[in-house]
């Protein structure tokens, strides 16, 4: 019994060691997002609270905590309260399998990439539950849109993951990173990286695919009826998901914790920092896209997902597998 508690204690300690930095960095990237956005539009952005406005997100969080939580009278109360909790939980549990370095991962499971994929496909429930439970037109329309959108783009993300797995021969995320020691997958699979990036934008409901919360048509989509801390949880979950997608892109295509070239000034920097650099790089790309591209029309979004991305990535699966077979490069024999 004693050993059981000591194991439990170390696990809880490890989880806290992972979760607290993730939550802090979520708050920080909200600030970064707004700064990059402002930079593109030649504004200053949040620059008042703290040095460079760094504490803006903390101030916002404080504001949300002290605001009243309003639950609409005609809503389905239990589901309404559960929805932001589901979003937040799902956004955080997927960090368990992200490898920050060799042997520096909370749960080194065999099917890590499937776990990530499964959890990100569950993410749609937070939105549907929120939209349905609000019992109001705008949230419901937002939820329906978002469900269709996320299911569509998941398909192409799945096929892209198959491309990477063909080159690795394992579903373990650490194995995926170690397979990129000589060549990052972004070079042979560059078209897949581009499609993954765009699908990740759609999967996280970021502009130009932010139709579920298109403020011009749907007020704020599924978040319309939420206020106070519950709104903040949706918001945090959304940004944690964005960070997670960036981490997934970094692990699948940009070599995870590996340094770009294995020579002196680069390989002394420890692995976790490289992963963080890569996540930040991808996130700044996300922010730049948000600042520059106009929103898609809904039929264009569906056409892009089903008629362009899906056939192209399927074609690329055939291409990759035949290439690997022809040059006898298939892994895991």
């Amino acid at each position, binding site marked *: 019994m004693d050993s059981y508690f000591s194991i439990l204690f170390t696990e809880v300690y490890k989880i806290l060691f992972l979760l607290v930095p993730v939550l802090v960095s979520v708050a920080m990237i909200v600030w970064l997002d707004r700064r990059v956005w402002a930079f593109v539009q030649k504004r200053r952005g949040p620059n008042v609270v703290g040095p460079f406005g760094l504490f803006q997100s903390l101030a916002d969080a404080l504001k949300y905590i002290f605001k009243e939580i309003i639950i609409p009278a005609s809503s389905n109360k239990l589901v309404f309260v559960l929805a932001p909790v589901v979003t937040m939980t799902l956004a955080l549990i997927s960090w368990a399998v992200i490898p920050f370095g060799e042997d520096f991962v909370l749960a080194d499971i065999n*099917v890590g990439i499937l*776990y990530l994929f*499964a959890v990100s496909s*569950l993410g749609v429930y937070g939105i549907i539950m929120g939209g349905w439970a609000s019992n109001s037109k705008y949230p419901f329309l937002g939820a329906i849109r978002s469900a269709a959108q996320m299911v569509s783009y998941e398909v192409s993300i799945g096929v892209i993951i198959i491309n990477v797995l063909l080159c690795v021969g394992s579903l373990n995320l650490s194995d995926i990173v170690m397979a990129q020691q000589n060549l990052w997958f972004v070079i042979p699979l560059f078209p897949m990286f581009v499609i993954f990036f765009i699908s990740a934008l759609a999967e996280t409901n970021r502009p130009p695919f932010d139709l579920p919360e298109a403020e011009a048509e749907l007020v704020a989509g599924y978040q319309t009826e939420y206020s106070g801390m519950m709104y903040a949880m949706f918001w945090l979950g959304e940004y944690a998901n964005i960070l997670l997608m960036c981490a997934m892109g970094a692990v699948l295509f940009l070599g995870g914790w590996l340094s770009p070239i294995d020579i002196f000034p680069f390989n002394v920097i420890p692995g976790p920092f490289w992963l963080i650099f890569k996540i930040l790089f991808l996130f700044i790309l996300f922010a730049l896209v948000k600042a520059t591209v106009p929103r898609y029309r809904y039929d264009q979004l569906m056409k892009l997902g089903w008629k362009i991305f899906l056939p192209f990535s399927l074609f690329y699966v055939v291409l990759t597998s035949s290439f690997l077979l022809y040059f006898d490069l298939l892994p895991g024999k």
Partner: protein
Amino acid sequence: MIAHSVFFYIFSLIAIISAVMVTVSKNTVHSVFFLILDFISISCLFIMIGAEFLGMIMLIVYVGAVAVLFLFVVMMLNVAEQKGQWFSSRWDGGTHIPIGLLVSLIIFFELIIVIGGWKYKPDLLNSLSINISNEITNTRSIGNVLYTDYILLFQISGMILLVAMIGAIVLTYRERAGVKRQSYVKQISRERDEGVDLVEAERNKGVKIDA
């Protein structure tokens, strides 16, 4: 080992309770939510017996896609409240209860036959030609069997699914008149010559466009 069995009982209890709640709950959307909970706890049970690939596929396919579509349909049909008419004493002339009883009776007998077969032929598991080892991951062992011994069955089941999908699309597809479609190729390949047309306009008459 105690922790293992405690978790097993927790997950199976959640699975059974939510399975009952799927049929009992009055709100259809709640039923679907309970169905999702059921799927999740079943996949947790899969993971607990070491079949992590099956558990994850269960999550991705059933929870991530099938249940979303269920929820979609149920929300769209707006059948939110059944108002307890299924179990009410007032018989509304519905025929769903006898049919439901018939179906569940058939499933019950099927289960009895399957489990009975297990009891009378205890070496059923050993007669499988697959040798299960702990050395290789179960993703790899499933792949080894699925793509070699059972490749035909696997392909045929894929074909059946494809046919079902195409059939559903053909059945529901309706050609609508007067829908304006956008063609990117047409838009991009438009030149100045075809886009701009210089016309001599007659006085007091104007020009007729779209002739």
